[in-house]
Structure formats: C-alpha cells, structure tokens
C-alpha cells in the first residue's frame, strides 16, 4: 500500500471525475423530481445501482454536460465551494436552490494498492454508497418541499473560492461557453428556508446537499 496525496498526479482529477459524474446524475434527477421539465423527456436509467431519471433531450443534456465540463477544472483544484442548481420561476426569481456544498480535505491521502496501482475498490465502493444515498435523498426530496409554480427554469451556479473566478476567465474550457457572474437576482432568495438533505463524508470529499426553498413559492 502506498499513499496518494493531492499532489500526486491527477488525484484531483479523480475526485472531479467522480463528482461531476455524480452531479450530472443529480441534476437530471432534480430536474425530474422538481418537474422543471415534463416527465416525458426523462428515461429511467440505473446509476449507483439505483434507478434514476435522465433526460433524453439532446440540448438539455448537452447543456448539463457542458456546464459540468466547465465545473470540473474548478473541482479539480478545489476551487468550487458550492455547485448550486437553481430553479427559478417565470420571473426568474429563484424558488429553490439545490446546493451541493463541496469541501475537499486539504491534505488528501488515499491508500493505493500497490499491485493494481489503483485506488482501492473499497474506497470507491464506499464513495459510491454515499453518493447513492444522496441520490436517493434527492429522489424523495419532493416530500419535504412545496410544489413549484409552473413554468420553472433552472440554471447552475458555482460558488468559487477566492481567486478562482479570475482563472476561469483566462481558461475557458469550452469556447463560447463562458462563465458569467450570476445576477444578484438569481442568487438572492427571499425568506429562504433551509432543508438539509444529506451530508456525506468520505476520505476524498465531503459534500452536503441542502435545499433552500422560498417561503412563498406561489407569488
């Protein structure tokens, strides 16, 4: 057994890969559960050994995919503090925010099996279990949330740490898909109420998911 640290090559990438994959699943699922899009465009798939819903609308998928592709470098560098899926009403006022708060331990170390020189399976399966739990929480979150008004849209926000924004402007992962600073309107929610959904703590990442919900959704 040897130990990998964050400094070791592509360790951040591993974490980012895992997280982005998860986020993609989660976003699709949120869109389904919160009925942002008609359920007709969703297909049932299996991920983390649980059923999930995934959109089959190519443009939507592309959008989500591109977004996460841009998020990935941030996660790699541990620059992303929160990834937020914001569901907004017709006036573009947020009604719900699904906040994935990500923190990676500063000193990451993973045991690696020398024989396979791969991150040990137990670790991965542990992480998968945790992620599965989060997914399950998402799929039942409608139980604790009010119904959204019709005609909602969604957007993805990233809260970065410190100077990450500047770097992002320099390095555009995808051409013509730049990050922009979020409107205050999109970020700010009146009378938010916070509903914690799930916290997962693993060796490589600590993530908690909570929902902020506008108190008066109808208005």
């Amino acid at each position: 057994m040897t130990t990998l640290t964050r400094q070791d090559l592509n360790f951040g990438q591993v974490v980012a890969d895992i997280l982005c994959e998860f986020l993609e699943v989660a976003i699709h699922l949120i869109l389904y559960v919160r009925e942002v899009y008609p359920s007709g465009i969703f297909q049932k798939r299996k991920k983390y050994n649980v059923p999930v819903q995934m959109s089959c609308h190519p443009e939507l998928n592309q959008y989500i995919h591109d977004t996460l592709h841009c998020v990935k470098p941030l996660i790699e560098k541990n620059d992303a503090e929160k990834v937020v899926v914001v569901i907004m009403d017709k006036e573009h006022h947020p009604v719900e925010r699904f906040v994935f708060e990500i923190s990676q331990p500063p000193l990451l170390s993973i045991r690696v099996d020398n024989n396979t020189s791969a991150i040990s399976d137990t670790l991965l399966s542990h992480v998968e279990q945790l992620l599965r739990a989060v997914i399950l929480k998402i799929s039942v979150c409608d139980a604790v949330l009010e119904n959204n008004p019709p005609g909602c849209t969604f957007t993805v926000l990233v809260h970065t740490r410190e100077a990450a924004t500047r770097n992002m402007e320099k390095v555009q992962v995808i051409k013509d898909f730049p990050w922009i600073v979020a409107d205050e309107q999109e970020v700010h929610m009146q009378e938010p109420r916070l509903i914690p959904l799930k916290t997962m703590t693993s060796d490589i990442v600590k993530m908690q998911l909570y929902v902020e919900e506008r108190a008066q959704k109808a208005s």
Partner: protein
Amino acid sequence: MSRDGRRKRDRDDNGWASMGGYMAAKVSKLDEQFKMDAPREKQKDGACSSIFAGVAIYVNGYTDPSADELRRLMMLHGGLFHMYYSRSKTTHIITTNLPNSKIQELRDQKVVRPEWITDSIKAGHLLSYLQYQLYAKQKGLTFPSVCVRQGQEAAGLIHGQTQPSHSLPVPSLNNLIPVLNNPSPSLGKPLSSHHTPISSHSILHIDNLLPQPNQCNPLSGDLNPQPSHSLPLASHLNPQSRHFSPGHCFLSPYSSNHLYSDPGHIPHHPPSQGQAKPGCIQPLAPADTHLQTPGPIPAHPSHEHSKPGHAQPQSSLSFSNHLQHSYRDLDFRLNGSLLTYDKMRTAQINWVQEGGGEDPCSVRPTRGATDPPLTNGHAHPVNGALKPLDLSPNPTLPTDTPLNPDRKSTGGSVSLHPASPLSNSPLKSDPPKLLHSPPRNPTPPPVSHHRHHEQLANEQQPKPPPPTYQEATAALASRPLVLSPPKPRQSDSPPEKPLPLDNPNRSTSPVRLNGSHHNAFTPNPAPLETNNLSAIPSNPATPDSDHQSVLAKTGGIISEFYSHSRLHHISTWRSEFSEYVNTLQSRRRATGGATFPGRDRLKRQRREGSSAAPGPQSCILHVDMDCFFVSVGIRHRPDLKGKPVAVTSNRGPGRVAQRPGVDRQLELQYYQRKYSHAGVSERKDGDLEEMTSAESHVSHSHPDTTCLSMAEIASCSYEARQAGVRNGMFFGQAKQLCPSLQSVPYDFQAYKEVALAMYETLASYTHNIEALSCDEALVDCSALLAELGATPEELASAIRTDVRERTGCTASVGMGSNILLARMATRKAKPDGQYLLRSEEVDDFIRDHRVTSLPGVGRSMGAKLASLGVRSCGDLQQVSLQQLQKEFGPRTGQTLFRFCRGLDDRPVRSEKERKSVSAEMNYNVRFTQVDEAESFLTNLSMEVQKRLQGAGLRGRRLTLKVMVRKVGAPVEPSKYGGHGICDNLARSVTLAQSTDSGQLIGSEVIKLFHSMRLEVQDLRGVGLQVQLLDGAHSAPYDPSGPKTRSIRDMLLAQRPPTQHNHTDLLADAPVADSTTNQGKSSSARVPPPFSTLRPPSPADPIPGTSKEEPLPSTRTPNHVRTRLNLSIEVPSPSQVDRSVLDALPAELREQVERSWTHREKERSHNGSHHRPSTPHPSSLLSSPSSPPTPAALPVGTLVLQIPNQPGQPGSTGIILELPDFSQVDPEVFAALPRELQEELRSAYSRRETAQAQGIIMEQRNPLLQLKQVGVGRVKRRYKKKNTNSSPIKKGLSPLKRPHPPGNSPAKALQHPLRPRDLSNGLKLENGPSTSSLKQDVPETLSKFTPRPEPTLAGACDFTDIRTLLREWVTTISEPMEEDILQVVKYCTDLIEDKDLEKLDLVIKYMKRLMQQSVESVWSMAFDFILDNVQVVVQQTYGSTLKIT
C-alpha cells in the same frame, strides 16, 4: 464570484487616505518627546556625545541592548530614535533578526545589528555600519529592476519607481550592459521617439539622481573609520575606494544614483559642451571603478570597445551574455578593490571605463537594441568621465585621450537624452549647468520632461543656468532625494577630478561638479535616506495604502502597537506594581523581615503621643491619588494649580479639521440614544482607568461639535470637573464647557516615577498592598494598626503626608472595614482628604449611594437595575436575594446583595490570579482583505502567546471579540482610527487542551473568525481572550497561598530568562500526585513543600542552584508545561538541602521522602515503557504518534511520555526555553543569586553553540508537544469533570456523566492515531507520514485546520447523541442552562462542520422529545436551542432551517 470584487482595495474613498497626516503628526509628536527626553537623559548620565548625529534608528524586534536602552543611547549620543519606521527619516534599522519577508522589504535599508551602536559608543566615533550589517547580501548587487517597467509610459514611470522590483538584481545589470554596449547609431533620432522606449529607463534615472550625493556622503563618513572591511559586497568596497577618490560618492549602492543623474545631465548639454563636462562623465566612471578590479579590465580608451563583451556594439539579443559577463566582472572587481590601495586606484580607473558601459545600461535591459541612441548617449558621457579619471594617478589606464573622442560623440548624443525622463528632471539639468558649464548651457531642458521630475521633487523647476555652484546647492538642498537601492555600478560623483581622487574626506564631496551631486548634498543626511526608503518599492501599494497594509500585514504590528501604545503601558503598570508588591513580599521573606521606615517613624510618633483608641478590628485603606495625571502633570507648574487643567494629547484650541468620510453627527446621535437608554452613570472620580472610549461623555456634546478635537481627556482637575468636564471627554467638548481649560501633555515618565514613589511610601508601612492601578492601592492595615495601636486616621494622615512630601501630589485615603467600604469612603474623602467609614455609619452611608457606584455595577447592569426600580443602594437592599440571583445569576446576585449592605469579604491580595489573558486592538483596525485579517489574527495570537507565556499560563477557552461597524454607521468614525459605532460580537471555542501556542490559538481563532462570516472591511476592533487558565486551576487561592507561590511567580513574571530554568527544576521533580484524581489525596499527604521548606532557608526555594545538574531526560519543554499545572511540587531529592530536610518535623520529612520513593517507582515504571518507545529523533518525526499506551500509565505521568531526544545534551531543553538574552531585565538578572546568574550565563553561551541544534529541535517539538500535551490534557480534563463537578449537578445531568468508554474521549486516547479525536496538529501528524507531508504541515496548519468532528459530551455518533438526549430529557425535569448551552454549542459546531443533515436530525429529534415532554420547560428549552441554532444557520447560510 462576487467575492472577488470585495477584495479590491478601495483605499481612496474610505477616508483612510489621510492617515499620512495623522501618522505624520504622531511621529512628530514622538520626535518631540524624544527631544524633550534627551536632555533629561543626558543630565542623568554624564557621558554624552554626538556620535550619532544624523543617525536615526528604528529598532525592530528584540535586540540586545533592548530598544529602550538603544533609545537612551541615541539620546545620549546625539542620534534619533524612531518609534515608527519611516522610510524617509530612519537611517538605520537595528535588529538582531529579521523574517525573510522583512528582509525582502528592507532590502535596501541599512539593517544593522545593535552592536553597531554599542561598539560605536565604545569606539567613541561612528563606526561603519557595514561590518554590522545583519545579513551579508543586504547591499548586494541589487539593482532596481528596471526591466519590469519598460513598457510603461513616461507618466507612469515615476510611479513605477516607487514600486519595488529589486528582486532581480542580475537582470538589471544585464540590462544596463546591453544598453551601453549598443553603439548609438542613431544619435540623431528625434527625442520624441525615444520617450516611450526609455520610460523604464527613465525611471531608474530618476531614482538614482535624487539620492546620490547626499547619501554617499553620510555613508562614506561611516565607512571611513574602517576602510578595511573584508566584506565582499560592493557597498563594502566602496569605502575604500572612497579614500582614493573622496570626491566620489563611493557608496556603491547609492552611487548608482549618480550614474543616472549623469545621463540626465548629458542630454542637457549642448553638443558643443561635450568636451567640457568632465563632471557629468566622471560620476559614472568612479562608480564603475569601484567594482572593477584592475586586472580583468584593461583600460580601454573607449568603454564600449574596451570590453570584449561590452565593447562590441551588441544587439539586444546578446544581452544575456552580457549579463553574465558583467556580473562576473562585478564580483571580481569588488574583490579586487578590497585588496590594495593601489589596486583600488587602478580599479577606479578601469571602473570608469567599464562603468560607462555598465551603469547606463543598467537601466534598460530589453530595450537595448531599440534604443541605441540612448545608450550611446550614456556611453559617451562615461567616456568623458574617464578622462578626468585619467588625470588622477592611475597607472593602469593607458590613455585618457581615447575617451575624449567618445566624449565628443556624446555631445552628439546629448540631444537624445532629454527624451528620457531623466533628462526631464530639473535637477539634472540644473546641475550640469551649474557646475560644469553654467555659461555654456545654452539650452534649457525641455519642459515636458520636467513634470516627471516634479513629481519626485516638487520644488525644482528647471532653472535657467544657475550662476554659481553654491546657489545651486542651496537650491537643491531642500529637495527630497530618492535613493535607489545600492548599486555597485553607479558612481556619478567623481565628476571633478581634482577633488575626488585625492581627497579622502567626504566633506569634500560637495564640490562635485555634477548637478546631481548638489542635489544630493542636502545639509542633513537623514533626509536623503528617507527618500531612499520611499523610493524603494518594496511595497507596491501606494503610499497611503502603505499604512494600512503595513498595519495589517507586517508581523510586528501588534506587538508594535502594544509596545508603542502609551496607554497600554499604563494599563500594564498595575501588574507591574503588583509585581513590585510581590517582590517586596519575597524580599522580606528572604531577608527574614523587612524594614518599614514609615512604620517605625509612626511608631515613634505614637510613643510620643498618647495612644488613642484602637481602630476597628479590620481596616482597609484605599489610597488613591487625586486626579493623578493632572497633579503629576502640574506638580512642577505651580501656575496651573487651582486652575481647570486636563491631561490630553491635544494642545491646540480643541479643534481639528474634519476628515472626509466622517459623519460625526450620526455618531453623536447614536451615542446619545444609547446613552439615554442606558441611563446616565457618570463616575464621579477616578483617573485613567475610567477613561473609556467615546460613549461615556457624548451626552454632553452639542450637536455643533463637528470639528472639535476628539482627543480624549485622560484626567482633569477638580476645578475642571466643576465646570462639567469629565475624564474621557473629548477635549474639544471640554473646551466648550470650560473655555479656560488648560491642557497638559502626557508625561509618562513622571507618572511612573510618582506612582513608584507612592508605592514605596506605602511599602514603608506594610507589604499587604494590593495594587489596583498606577495611582490606586489597597492596604490591609489591620495588623499594622494592631501593632502600632494607632487609629486608622493617624495612619492615613501619615501616609498622605508622606506621599505628598515624596511626590508633590496629594492622595486621598478612604478607610473601611472592607474593600468596598474603603473605596466608597475614598469618594467622600476626595479631594485630598481622608475618611473613615465606621461600621456603625455604614448603613446610612451606603443607602444613598447610587447602585452604579458599587464596583462591578456598570452601565448595563445599572440600567437593568433601574428597570427594576432600583437606583440607590437603599433600593437595592429591598430586593430579595432570590430575585437578584434570578436576574443576574447566582454569583452576581449574591455579590450585589452583599455589596448594597456594605458587605464585602474580598481579601486584600498582594497577588492576584489572572482569570484571563487577552489582547485587544480596536484602534486603527482596517482591513481590506481576508488575508490581512487573518494575518492580523495570527499576530494577535502571537501577542497573546507572548502574554500567556510571560505569565506562565495556558488557557483552554478562546474568545474572539470583534467590533463590526454597525450597519449604516459612517465608514470612517470621527475619532481618527477609532472604531466608531460598532456591533460587538463575540464567539468562543473551547480547545481540547490548554495551550499557549500562538499558532494553535491563531488557527482556532481564524476558524472562529470565518465562522462569523464578517465583512473584513467592516472590522473595527479585534480582541482575543484566553480563559480557563491552567495556572489558576492548579493552585486554588488560599490566604497563605501567595507566600508559597510567590517566588515562583516572581520568577515567572519578572525574570523571563530564568523562568524556564526554574520551572524546569520544578518540573523535573517527578511529582507524586500526578493524576488529578489523586490530587486531593496526595495534597493531603504531602503538604505544600515549598511553604514548609522555604522558611528555614530562603535560598532553598531557589532551586536554581542545583539546576545545572544533569537531569533525567524528562526535562523538556513539554514536561515543563504540564508540570506547571500541578499544584504541589516536591523538588527532587537532588535539589533539596539535606539539612533543611532534616530540620523538618518528622512527619513532614516522611511525607516528602515518601513522595520521592513514589516518584522513583513511577519513573522506573515509565522508564521501562519509554526507553524503548522513544525513538531516535528522526524517527520521532516520522512516527510522532508512537506514545506508549496511555492506559498503562497513571495520568500524571504523561510528562514522561514526552519522547526524549537521546542525542541531545540534557540541557537542550532548557536552552530552548531561554528567552532572548536581550529581554532579560538586567536588574532582575543582577538581583539573582550569583550561582543562578552563572548558570544562566553559561546556558546562554551554550545556547549559542547549541543553536543550530536547537532550531532543529524546535521544529520538531511543536508536533510532539501538541500531541503529548493533548493526550494528557484531555484525559485530565475528563477526570476532573468527574471529581469536580458540583454535587448539585452531579448525576442530574447525563450530559455531564462520564460516558461509556465507547463514546468517551478516553477511548480516543487509546487510539491516538484516530485523527478526529485529536487536535489538528495531531491529525496532520497522523496521516501516513511522508517527508513531503511533513513539510506541508506548517502551512496547512494555519490555513485549513481539519476540525475534529463535533461531539456532544463526548458523543459524536448520532445514535449516541440520541441516547444522550433522550436520557437528558427523560430523566431531568428542569434542564440546566449549562447543558442547554452545551447542546447549542454542539449544534453550532455541526453547522460549522457542514453537517447539516445531522443537525437536522438532532433538531428534529429534540423537537419530538422536548415538545412531548410534560414539562413546559423543555419546550422552552427547545425553542431556545432552536432560536440560537437558527441564528447561526442564518449567519452561515443566509437562510433558516425549515423545521417541519
């Protein structure tokens, strides 16, 4: 994303821009004080001189001698001492050690070791500082990095200069060279074209020009005495070279300036002049000469060609080569110059040639190819310079003549130069005209150029050719000079051949022809240097931002604040005088009884007179000086007696200009509102300690006070008080109330003298004194009166007479049967009176007093009482104890209940336990960035560490107190640098173990800080408090206690150097009662040994005598710390004087011996465990977590777990603990027993040798320490909990119950490797450690501190928590507040830990539990918890939990 914007500095609109003005005022005030003090010092100390005339030092950090001493020395010997570092005025920075960052910052300053001063004094003249430079590279070949700015426009250039780009010395050289090398093909180019490319170049020039001549002179002066420094640095060389050609400014660093100036000159000269200007040319040449050794550089007729590398006209591409070449050459030259006088000369010459090449080049690296014209121009002048040199006796130079031709060419090039910004500067243009060819100068420099220069030196306008040299000098003298960092190459100064070469003296230097020189020659050398500083771009920030950034960033800021804050000094006097009293006590014990002259005298008087009735049984005297600060201030000014006088810093009419960003009106309203709500409580009397910030007096202010002085009145005379003036009022207001009010400046020296005199007076009667402040003390004179048979009045009047005679100031004395009454009596006694409050009068007396006059009843409590309808003590007496306790808590209620009846059982304590150690700064706190705040907090933590360690304490609870600008309050308060209207927030955390480590505290505090989510810009004050101190726990107060501990305390507090040794001793005696559990029983078994041991032989308790004995390896710092907690220490057998032991009563002796044997067993026990497990130091590092299994050892033995360093000499531990020698108070040192002194000395000397080792050790120790202490502490604490929790609480609350091993921390102890259970440091260590990991630790420690998982009473698993909560709710009918708070704390921790899910579950669970409970109290408790949690959630996430 939005966060980014916040970080931008908006220094312009925050009103802070005027800081410069404030600081200037403050600095000038300090200077004034210094000047005032100087004669005083000189009087005191006959020996004075003016060795240091023109030298202004700034002391950074610890030095030996101390800063104070240095200040005194500077006073004595004609120098200046700057409290605040000023780039423009400070000439030397004195320090013994600088952090790297500072070295970078001060790179171009003269950073000198303090020995320079002492040695200079010894030598009787100013020695060259070069030998004493702190770090050798200091003045090395660093050139202002021109290259950075190349692209900038001319306008920007000047600005650019100010910014530091020194970092690349070599490149800059290179740059220079290329320029020179380039032949100037296009001399004829239009100036305009040159402008832009030159810009960077121009920058350099400007810098150089300004500083040059002046600096050289002062420096050279220094250098002269010791020409033979062997320092390799260019700067060093210079001195010697100077001898050869005194005229030149040799100081190589500075000389560079000269060079630059020259180019400027050149442009001005019309082509026709070309031949004429030796002056201009020369300066360059000399500089070069310094550097060069004769050998390498044959004298070439023309610079360009002479050097293989340089000579060839090279394109810019070839620069790199040049660089290398030049660099090498430089070194070489330097060495050469050192070698011999002759060589020097030759070197000079050579240098000249080269110099031509190098110096000018330095300016421009990249540009070279593109700017041929410029380079040419430079080169030519250089050549011209060579000529003059040739004249000087220089064998090596083959021919001067070649230069001349060049010179002419320069003439052609001259036109080009003006294009460069340098030429623009009026200075340059002037000098050439003046010196060399005043008549000749037909063409005034182009005006456009001037503006740049003007920025630097405002006043200088391009003058028509000045008629005389002298005029020019006069004109120039006033202009500010900017010195460039030391550059070997530049040397403009030797323009005039006749003077420079032969004349060794600096004084001659003024003769220099170059205009630049003239500038340089300001009458006062100091100003020059200051300019230098400003020029040094170490800080990229603009000047006004400097203060800020420096404030927040520099490491020393906080300690600087404290060391400079005079008010802080006063506040520390109290502890100083406490120490004084302690010393008295111990001295008396040491001498077997003290002499009390006052008492004796009184006794005699008594005998003569008839004896009066004996006084009350117990009598406390409260002695308080009458308006201390005023009476001290006017004691030598009888004219002010009887007039309204106030002590304040403001001397003016009480008005100051209003600063922008200030909304005074708003603040006044705020305070008024607040004030009226709180109810008026103006204290009638008291001096400085009552000086509060703005709040207390604002009610008096009128709305039109917008521009009144905000200087606070520290103290005012009774006459002034009659007019309504109050202490703490702002002077401006006071002046309105009382127009005849006179102000008196602070005189801290005098305060101290008078205060000391007062204490001495008191001490001449008795030693039972409690110091309350510098002017106030409590005296327990019960015994004294009984002995004398005197009445309190007699004693009081005797004391008052004494005090008046000795100090010239009056004191009032209040007498009562307890402290409370004595203090209240003093109020009646004032001014200048005495009053005995007899017990029979107490009731009537106290009834009419306002409640707020009771000690401990402040405004807020007063308001609360008022809301109960209680205003006077009489009212308070009507309130039942229960009600009071309900309102104010059990303890406060009790106290109030007693106080209002005049009951007070507090004893007069000549020594006090500290309850907390804190450091706070709410002045001048302005951050723009989170980093600044963090580093500030770190620094503040270090300050706290200093204080903790100074007091020998360690604390467990940290409280961060923050003042945040109230929303809507003006950004800038009307008091300069003040905090304005603020919200006060506090947050605290309890650490796993006690600590005094600043780093640990810092990281915790930063965590706290972040959890508060504040806008750093709005921070106005930050305070850090450490409570739950360990020293305090271990030794509960007992009346006879002070004596038993006082020596140690004295040592701890007064003698930092020996403190550790001493504690080592104590520590190294293994103690029998090490477990807290056993504590009680053992204390019963072994009576406090010191108290018993000491009396027989006073020398005994100073175990230092045996200190040097090789001690068992247990002696390590860790050991010491832990040991300090133990309340009972039995010295080890080796340290106990056998005879003393024998003299002890049999039982006692037996006990002591038993403890020894016990200890012996323990030691062997531990030893068996330890020896094997203590690894080699290196292995310690890699596996720091290998402590022996704690379970096997009694808790108390944790000390022994500290891994020893087998390889180290036993003394290493001690050595590490010694403070810097400079901090040792010499007096204290002298007062030590001789052996102790010797030991200390040898320890210090040994430390010198062991230093390297020690450093390594120190690096290792923190880790070890952390862990070891942690383990011990945790365990200890829990044990304590079991035994100490009050009987009432015990058993009632499951939260406090010891937890089943499964959840309890005890379990964690058994698995020290489990990261979460231990402190941060531990966690880091515990990771599978690779060496790379280790290195990361320090940084990561401060930045991210992995937090331990929050626990509720030791439980962190949700099921455990649930069980715990259920038990709590079901078994207890009424929850204790403490437990509720604990739950809240746990929830808060969960939020911080970002574990909202668990929080949610816990809350929901509690909700179910508590709301189902029959007791409505539980519902309320839940609401309380929920409210608190919601607040925190709101703060953290901006939203509240949805509880369904």
